[in-house]
C-alpha cells in the first residue's frame, strides 16, 4: 500500500488531438517522480488530471485509495499542493494573505496557522519581513518561495510542481533547486515534478517518467534510461540534452 496516487487507464483528448493515450501510472509515497518530455508530450495534462483541473475522458484517478469525483474534489485538493511556473499568486493579496488564504477559508485556528507560517518561512528561506508585500513587489524567486509556502500550508500529502523554476534566471534557479531538494527530503514529501530539463530531472528524481506524444515511453532511474532505453526516442532525448 505504498502507492499514493493511481491513474487507472485514463485518457484525454481535445477534439481531434489526443493529449493523453490510455495511460496507467502509480506514484509511490515519499518519492519524487519527475515527468519529463518535449512540449506537448502530455506531462502537464497528467498533472492537471491529478489536481482535477481537467477531467479524464476515460479511466479513473485515486488518491490514497479514494476515487476522485466531482463531489470530493475540493476536499481532495486541500490534501494536494500545486505550484505553477508563474507562481499563480493573487495580485490583490499580500504574500501572507496568499499563504494563509485556504487555512483561513476553512477556519484553522489563528495560532496554529501563524506557527505554521513561521515554520514555512524558515523552511523556504523567505524573510518574514517580506510577508506584507504584494506579489508585484517581490522578485521571481521570492514569488516562487511564497507559492511553495502556500502549497505546503495545509501539510499536503502530495505536492505537484509544474515547471516551477522555468521562469527564473540561472543563479536564482540554482539556489532554489538546492533549497527545494532539501525541503523534499526533510518533509519526506511525495512530489510530482514536471520539467523539460533533463539535468533538473536528474537532480530531483527518485524516478523519471519520460513521455512523448501522449504516451509514457519509459519509467525508471536515469541509469535505466541511459543503459536500457526502451525506445530509440529515449536515447535521442537524453543525448540531445547532454550536448546543450
Amino acid at each position, binding site marked *: 500500500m505504498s502507492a499514493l496516487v493511481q491513474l487507472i487507464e485514463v485518457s484525454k483528448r481535445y477534439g481531434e488531438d489526443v493529449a493523453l493515450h490510455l495511460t496507467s501510472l502509480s506514484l509511490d509515497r515519499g518519492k519524487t517522480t519527475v515527468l519529463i518530455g518535449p512540449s506537448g508530450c502530455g506531462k502537464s495534462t497528467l498533472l492537471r488530471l491529478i*489536481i482535477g483541473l481537467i477531467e479524464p475522458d476515460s479511466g479513473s484517478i485515486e488518491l490514497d485509495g479514494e476515487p476522485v469525483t466531482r463531489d470530493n474534489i*475540493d476536499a*481532495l*485538493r486541500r490534501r494536494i499542493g500545486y505550484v505553477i511556473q508563474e507562481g499563480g499568486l493573487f*495580485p490583490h493579496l499580500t504574500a501572507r494573505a496568499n499563504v494563509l488564504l485556504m487555512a483561513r477559508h476553512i477556519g484553522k485556528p489563528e495560532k496554529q496557522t501563524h506557527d505554521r507560517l513561521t515554520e514555512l518561512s524558515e523552511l523556504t528561506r523567505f524573510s518574514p519581513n517580506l510577508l506584507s508585500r504584494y506579489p508585484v513587489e517581490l522578485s521571481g524567486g521570492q514569488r516562487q518561495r511564497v507559492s511553495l509556502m502556500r502549497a505546503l500550508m495545509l501539510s499536503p500529502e502530495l505536492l505537484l510542481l509544474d515547471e516551477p523554476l522555468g521562469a527564473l534566471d540561472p543563479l536564482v534557479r540554482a539556489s532554489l533547486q538546492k533549497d527545494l531538494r532539501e525541503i523534499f527530503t526533510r518533509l519526506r514529501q511525495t512530489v510530482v515534478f514536471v520539467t523539460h530539463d533533463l539535468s533538473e530531472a536528474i537532480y530531483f528524481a527518485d524516478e523519471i517518467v519520460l513521455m512523448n506524444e501522449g504516451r509514457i515511453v519509459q519509467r525508471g532511474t536515469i541509469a535505466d534510461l541511459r543503459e536500457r532505453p526502451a525506445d530509440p526516442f529515449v536515447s535521442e532525448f537524453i543525448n540531445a540534452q547532454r550536448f546543450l
Partner: protein
Amino acid sequence: MASAAATPVAIGSKKFTESYVLGEIAKRTLTDAGIPAEHRQGMGGTIILWEALRGGQIDVYPEYTGTIATEILKSDSNVSIDEIRESLANLGVGMTAPLGFNNTYALVMRRSEAQRLGIRTISDLQKFPDLKFGLTHEFLERQDGWRPLRQRYGLPHENIIGIDHSLGYSALTNGSIDVKDAYSTDAKIEQNDLVVLEDDLHFFPKYEAVFLFRSSTRKDAIAALRRLENTLDETRMIRLNAEAERTKDYARAADLYFNVGATSVPRVSGRSGHSEFGESFPRKLARWTLRHLQLAGFSLLLSILVGIPLGILASRGGAVGHVILGFVGVVQTIPSLALLALLVPLPFFGISIRTAIAALFLYGLLPIVRSTATGLQDIPRALRESAVALGLSSTARLWKIYLPMASRSILSGIKTSAVINIGTATLAALIGAGGLGEPIISGLNLNDHVTILEGAVPAAVLALLVQWCFDLLDRVLIPKGLRI
C-alpha cells in the same frame, strides 16, 4: 378644510406655454373652490398626457378638439363636439364645453419676408419652392399635419427640417428657416413680428380648447372646471400667453384671468409662499439638485445590484452570456426619449418618478454588465486555475479572488454609469419627474438661455463631482496590490 386631507386632483399640461397657463388656471379654479389640486407642468406631448389620464396618474388636462378627434380617437376631424364627447365617455373620460378660443394650427412667416414676396395665403407658398420649412416633430407626424396639408395645397417644397417649437422661433427670426407651424393664439407671433398665412382652403380643423377629465373625478371638481366654459376668447388667451412668456411665471399669468373683468380690487395673493415661483433661486436649485441626485442615485444603485450579477453570468460566455450582453446593448441603442415614451403607457410606471428611475436603471446596466464581464474574463487562466487547485469553493473563488481582481474594471463601469445617469436624468423632467432638467425644459420652452443654464451648469458640475468622488472611491475599494 376637511377636504384638504383628500388626494389632490392632479392636473397635467403639455410642454408649451398655453398648456401651462391653462393648467395653472385649472389649479387656481379648483383651489379657490376648496379642492386640493396639484399641477404637473409640461409632462410631454399628446400621447403622454392621454396615457397618463387613462392610467390615472393625472385627473385633468387641457386639450384641443381637433387633437382629440384625429390623434386620440383616430377619427375624422369633422366630427361634432357631441360625437367626441360620446366617444370619450366610452373610454371613461369626460370633456368640458369649449373654453372659448380656437387655437388651430397655422403657418407663420416673417412679416417682412411675406410682404417682400407678396405671400398672404398658404396657396401663395406654391410659387416659392425654395422656402425653408422648420416644423415641429409633432406637426410633421400628425394625421392632420404636414403631409395632408402639403397634399391639399400641392406644396412643392423639399427643404423641410424637424425642430423644437420654441427653438423654431429663433430659427425663423434669424432666417435659418422661412416658414414654421404655430398655434393661432401663440404670443410669439406678435412678439417676433410674424404673420399667420391664411388657410384659404380651410385645411386645419377647429382646435377648441377644452379640459379632459377622468369620469371618476370628484363631482365638485368637474363642476368647478365647467365654470370655465366660454370664458376665454382668443384675444384674452394671447394676452395670457404673452404675460406668461414675459414674466416666465405661469401662476401670475393665470391670475390675470381671474382679475380681468372682475372687481377693480386686485386679488391679494397670499399663496406666493406655496407657489414654486416664489422660491428663491438657491432653494429651487437645492430642490432640483436633490431630486436629480435621488433619480440618478437610486437608479444607479439598481443598476449595480442587477448589473454585477448579470455581468458575472455574462462572463461565463455561452448562449446566456450572449443574450445578456445583447439585451443590455440593445437597450442602450433606444433613444432616451423613446424609452420614456415606451414606459409611460405601462401599468405601474406611467407619468412618475418610477418611470424615470426605470429608464435610467436600464441605461446604467450596459457599462456595469460589460465592465464586470470583461473584468472577470481578463483574469489570467493560470490565476483562475490556481484558485481552483487550492480547493476554494466556487463562491469563495468569486468573492475572495475573482471579484476583487476585477474590481478596477467593475468600478470604472459604475463610474461611467453614474456620469451618464447624471446627464440623462435631465430628461426625467419631460415626464414630470423633476430634477435639473426642469429649468432646462422650461428654458427651451421659453427660449430663455439663462433658465437653460440654471439647469445645465449644475448638471455638468454634478457630473464632475460624481466623477471626482468615484476617483476617491477607487482608492478605498480597489485592493492596494492592484494599484502598485
